[in-house]
């Protein structure tokens, strides 16, 4: 008997219940609250809720259009007086009409590059004063953005830079974490999404560990901006 088998057999014996019963007794939830909560909200109502809840978690919430997106991104970089900028490697630039912008943006960006290796990408992220990333969803209920790790937008991309902006298409504002979790679950199981990591990020990092005083900006970015592109 393997070590694992001995461990699991021991648990079954102590519990007084036979193993391998789960397949005949799957979990059937007692209610559907995760799906039905906020399910009656229209897209406009969800957008309004997303704004309120994002601002409640110290996020700068802005909206723009595809046409005005480059100017909004420039304004962010200028507002943060960023001398170093980190961008992901992604086909999102094309979708958002940002191909020309990224050729001209100042400061000249450093990219999170697939294949560049751990050290190079971490170094780029750690020295970035600002990062602009692309989120998969914005959750209205909690003011949360979600992003699955990709070769071009790694884990530390969201954590090491000092100031962070996430671009989110308005069509990706959903009610709650349930809708996003369902999507990721489906995509991963179908093999359409290959990722080792999914981040749900709700505002900048914070802590109440010193006398319960809220400190915004601990290990992760010191501030967060959500830029919702209304015609996407």
């Amino acid at each position, binding site marked *: 008997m393997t070590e694992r088998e001995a*461990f699991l057999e021991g648990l079954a014996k102590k519990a007084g219940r036979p193993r391998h019963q789960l397949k005949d007794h799957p979990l059937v939830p007692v209610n559907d*609250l995760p799906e039905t909560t906020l399910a009656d909200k229209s897209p406009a109502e969800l957008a309004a809720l997303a704004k309120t809840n994002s601002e409640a978690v110290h996020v700068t919430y802005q909206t723009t259009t595809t046409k005005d997106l480059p100017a909004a991104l420039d304004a962010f970089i200028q507002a943060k007086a960023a001398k170093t900028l980190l961008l992901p490697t992604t086909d999102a630039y094309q979708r958002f009409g940002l191909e020309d912008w990224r050729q001209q943006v100042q400061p000249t960006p450093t990219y999170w590059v697939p294949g560049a290796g751990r050290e190079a990408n971490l170094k780029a992220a750690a020295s970035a004063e600002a990062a602009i990333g692309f989120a998969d969803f914005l959750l209205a209920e909690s003011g949360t953005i979600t992003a699955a790790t990709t070769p071009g937008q790694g884990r*530390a991309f969201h954590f090491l830079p000092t100031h962070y902006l996430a671009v989110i298409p308005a069509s990706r504002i959903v009610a709650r974490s*349930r809708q996003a*979790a369902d999507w990721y679950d489906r995509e991963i199981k179908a093999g359409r999404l290959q990722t080792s990591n999914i*981040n*749900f990020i*709700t505002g900048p990092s914070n802590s109440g560990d*010193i006398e319960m005083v809220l400190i915004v900006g601990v290990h992760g970015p010191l501030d967060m901006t959500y830029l919702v592109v209304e015609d996407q």
Partner: protein
Amino acid sequence: MTIKTSNEPFLTRLKESEQDTFMQKAVAKAQDAQWDKRTAARNELGHWEQWRDLGEQIRQHVIRYLPDYLEEFADNIEKHGGHVFFAKTDKEASDFIKHLAEEKQVHHVVKSKSMVTTEIDLDKELLKIPGLSLLETDLAEFILQEDDWDEPTHIVFPTLHKNRDQIRTIFQKLGYTGDNDPQHLARFARTYLRASFLKADMGITGCNFGVADSGLINLVTNEGNADLVMAIPKTQVVVMGMERLVPSLKEAEVLDNMLARSAVGQKLTSYCSFSTRQVSGESDGPEDFYVVIVDNGRSNALGTPFEPVLQCIRCGACLNVCPVYRHIGGHGYGSIYPGPIGAVLSPVLRGYEQFGDLPFASSLCGACTETCPVRIPLHELLIKHRQVMMNKLHTDKSFNNVIMKGIGVATSTPAMFRMALTADHVAMAPLTKHAPITVENEYPEGIIRKAPSMAKGWTDVRDLPEMPKHSENFRSWFKQHHKEQEAKQDD
């Protein structure tokens, strides 16, 4: 540090806690603030009792089929190229991780907050390796480490007992020269720890929930340190209690929402992550991924009346409503798991010889049971512990039996009960003090400050107002009120 944090007797620990007035004020402030935030967050979600039904069902289902879920979870970790080690004891778990660190010639370890790694005394075991440095990166745990591994006082707010001046003094030893502003202190920690993150070759995290059908590790934090621990080092070790599983992402999502609302009154914590071993093409995240699943006494609860304690999601809400915790703080319990959950869990993990006092550190008011998001019947389990202990230790119950029998006879015999109601005011008069109403005295009509004999224990910590005169007691009032009501009806 292991589960037991003090070798002092329970009463000595209580005396020490009584002296710590800063801690008492800090705990009271935290409890009151968390009450407001927690209640608001739950109310905003709506249908909280039905959410509790769902949370309880998920946790009970996992515990019921725990070996099956563990098997599924381990299979999925291994499918992604990770490794799983099942540890029956704390020693097995810490030995495995220590050997791993030696084998990989690790130099710099960064850790995120994990109760179970404290439980298995991992930090001190790893620091025995020559040349190895280890840093706790959660701000509170970092403060405790730098204060010579001080004990945590709360499972969510471990440094509740420390003020900003004490933290400033701790940081000064590391080169901090600023003032005691929490923001400045935190910025110093950020800079100090950032350097350690970037050179770390092993990251160690806990696990809020392991997702059985995918092998993903779900972690929630507000600081973002856990995500850096999972992103930067090439090797990651996850240490988790064996019961911390959920069937799928759906149930993790439900419990993350309930955990954040119950622990800190937030809708979700700042960071909520689901991760596993790095996949092809990614450049950060762990290339080597180990999950250590720890029993360490948890299985003592299986198949017993204490099984519901394994439902716990470590939100700490029961600590935040407990009147006993409010008075004695975390250190009074002498366990890394304090409060009502600790008073139930600690004896399960380590037995009554070490933690037999804790089930008595409760007023049995039931506030813990009432607030628990996954409906653990905490106060009932505390009573059950007392029963089991009485039977197991063959405690002499004759004195209690005589007392309870006497009370039973007196309260069920009308003549005796009436006599007591007539005599109580007169009998207590010699002990009664009269003083004007103040914040310290809510009973200007009379209060007993020091009762004799067994009742002294009560008056040491609680108010004992003088019994009302016979003409002013409830029965007399009710009789009079009833007469007046009848007279009104007749009119």
